[in-house]
Every structure is written in structure tokens, then in C-alpha cells.
């Protein structure tokens, strides 16, 4: 009998909300949204944790410029180190920059181990940066943390939304709480105006924009569409520098979305 599963709820008992940032494909901005979301919530004065669950391609530490990662402190388990007010945990504390070639069962075991031994303490939000798709880590979070709420990221690409639909379908089938969908990396040259104006201009015409189309596709699932984030050419340059990151148009757009989420779902 695996003794670790039963203790996980106990480890997370003082965490008010657990938000998993997920999406179907790699490279669509899950880690960027998860890291920046953690940063925004922290700047708003909330107690925030960030757990990078992407063992194959951990990147939250790169986005936040965390370089001095080391073993977490030990106190009745492991205590995540704090950076910019965010309690941060990633496999990089244990693997450094080496590859972690883990098969499914190993991913499951590592996810469960980290959840069972980590003392997050009291948090308003624990943000989980999920790996792409609906594989082992996603299924484990759904299975083990029943109250985890999902924010799903897509890009305007058909390739992204078609895969995201599969994720949404699964989450709905398993009755997983879904906060909503964010459309990331819209091309400003294609959609030069604000989303609101785009919507009004094209709402009744035949010339639907991709943005509207995705919004409609999401709404067809009866899932909230949280908002759009335009592709930000300055984002790349902000990677590793939280001050620059916080001032990007990417972060500002996300902040507007966060405010909307908090309005609808105040911290309990």
C-alpha cells in the first residue's frame, strides 16, 4: 500500500485555492502564464506557491530568473524556497539542468512523492504549471487533488484549439472544476484592435476573426472564456527578469484577466 496518497490532502490543507495551468500543446505559454500569474497574485499581496510539474521541460525558473536553485530546506518534509515572495518548487532543485527522462510510472511517482513531502504551509493560491496534454501528471493531479481548478491555455492556431478541446472534453467528463480558457499569442497585426472592438465589428458579419471563433468554440463547451493575450514581442527579452516581465503587455493583459477571475471567484 502506497502511504503517500493519504497524506497529500493534509499537506495542502492550508492552501485556499489550487489552480492548474494546462493546455494541449507545448510552446503555447502555459509556463509563461503560470509564472506570471504567480507573480501578479504575489504582487497583489496574496500568499502564493508555484509548483512546476513539467518534469521534461521545466521552465518556470527560467521565466522568473531563478538561478540559485538548491535543495529545499528540510522541516518535517521539504519547504520550498521563496523567490519574489513566491514559494517555488521544481524538479530542477533535484535534477539541476540535466534531462529527466521519466516514463509514465516514474512521472506519477515523482508527482506523488513531491506532493506528499512538501510543506507548502499557508497559501492563498498554489499555481501548478502543468506539462502539455492529458498524460500522467495531469491525470494524477485530477485523481489526487480533487479541488484543483484548471485554467486552460490555447493559441489561435487550429493545432492548439483542436488539442485543447480534447483536454476540455476530458476535464468536463471527469467533472473537474474549470475556471476558463485564455487565448494566448494573438497576432496584433491580424487583430489590431482591442478584443471588445473586434467582437463588435465582426460579431454579426461573416468575417469572423480567429479570436472570435475560439471564443465561440470555448463557449460551446459552456466554459468561461477568460480573455485574449496578444503576442508580445518584448516578452522574450523579459524572460529571467521579473521587473521587465511584470511590465510587459503580456503581464498587463494577464493582470486584467486575473482581476476578472478574482472578481468572479474571490478567495474563500
Amino acid at each position, binding site marked *: *500500500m*502506497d*502511504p*503517500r*496518497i*493519504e*497524506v497529500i490532502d*493534509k*499537506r495542502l490543507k492550508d492552501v485556499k485555492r489550487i489552480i492548474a495551468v494546462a493546455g494541449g500543446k507545448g510552446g503555447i505559454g502555459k509556463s509563461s502564464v503560470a509564472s506570471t500569474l504567480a507573480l501578479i497574485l504575489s504582487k497583489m499581496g496574496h500568499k502564493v506557491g508555484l509548483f512546476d510539474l513539467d518534469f521534461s521541460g521545466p521552465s518556470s525558473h527560467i521565466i522568473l530568473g531563478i538561478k540559485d536553485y538548491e*535543495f529545499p530546506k*528540510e*522541516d*518535517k*518534509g*521539504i519547504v520550498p524556497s521563496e523567490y519574489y515572495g513566491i514559494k517555488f518548487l521544481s*524538479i530542477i532543485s*533535484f*535534477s539541476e539542468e*540535466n*534531462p*529527466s*527522462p*521519466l*516514463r509514465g510510472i*516514474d*512521472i506519477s*511517482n*515523482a508527482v506523488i*512523492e*513531491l506532493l*506528499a*513531502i512538501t*510543506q507548502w504551509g499557508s497559501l492563498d493560491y498554489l499555481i501548478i504549471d502543468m506539462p502539455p496534454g492529458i498524460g500522467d501528471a495531469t491525470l494524477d493531479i485530477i485523481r489526487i487533488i480533487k479541488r484543483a481548478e484548471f485554467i486552460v491555455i490555447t493559441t489561435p492556431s487550429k493545432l492548439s484549439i483542436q488539442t485543447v478541446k480534447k483536454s476540455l472534453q476530458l476535464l468536463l467528463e471527469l467533472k473537474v472544476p474549470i475556471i476558463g480558457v485564455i487565448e494566448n499569442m494573438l497576432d496584433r497585426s491580424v487583430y489590431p484592435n482591442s478584443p471588445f472592438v473586434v467582437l463588435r465589428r465582426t460579431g454579426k458579419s461573416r468575417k469572423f476573426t480567429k479570436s472570435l471563433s475560439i471564443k465561440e468554440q470555448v463557449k460551446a463547451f459552456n466554459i468561461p472564456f477568460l480573455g485574449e493575450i496578444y503576442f508580445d514581442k518584448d516578452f522574450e527579452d523579459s524572460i529571467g527578469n521579473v521587473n521587465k516581465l511584470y511590465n510587459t503587455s503580456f503581464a498587463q493583459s494577464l493582470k486584467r484577466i486575473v482581476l476578472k477571475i478574482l472578481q468572479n471567484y474571490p478567495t474563500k
Partner: protein
Amino acid sequence: MHEWALADAVITTTLKVAENEGLKEISEIIVKIGELQTIDTEIFNFALKEVMQPQKKLLENAKIKIKSEKAILKCKVCKHEWLFKNAVKNLSEDETESLHFIPETAHVYLRCPKCNSPDFEIIQGRGIWIDSISGER
């Protein structure tokens, strides 16, 4: 100490089993400790006693047997099997410490001694496992 979290997991699970099975007293818990996780059994025992303390009624007479299990690894590519104790000598202190926290980092720091692949199975001896819980209803 990280052993405390694992001891806490063992006792939390035992309490849950006792509740589900209607056990009024636990007589024995057999815990297997896999070699890969290099758990310090003295610290683990100490932590167990501390965690058990508030559960006097249920666990007062419980004997905890700790069995260690040797870690065996098997390569997925060339099917070679080898013992972790022979491989651990080549690991640095930090690498062993990583395995202590997350045994799966074996795939980061160990390679098949025959074909050098990181694609191997941990056949046995990964981490902590409850072998059995005995008690009276």
C-alpha cells in the same frame, strides 16, 4: 527532516485503514523501505514515534517492523539487471541526496552499466511502502 513527512504518511494511511476497516487497535505495521531512497531508519523510527504519539489509544501496542528492500534496476533497452548498491558508489553526495528526495532522479544520474541508457525500470526497492497493517476490530 524529510523522513518525518514519510513517517507521517505511514501513520496517516494507517489511521485511514483503521477507520475504513473498523479496527480499534493496531497490533502491527510492516513497512518496507526501498534502498533507492536511502532513508535513515533511525531518524524514520524517531519520526514514527513522534507522529504516533497523539494516537495513543489506537497505536499504543502497535509494533512497527521495518524491512529494507534492495533496489534492483532493469534496463528497458538491453534488459540488463543490476543492483543499486553497486551503482551508488559512483554518485556524488548531492546526487544521492536527490535520490533521497525523489528516487526517480535515478534516471537523471544513473545509466545502465551495460549500454549506458537512462531508460530503465526500478523493479523493486524504490521508496516507502506499507506491506501490511494488522489489528483487532
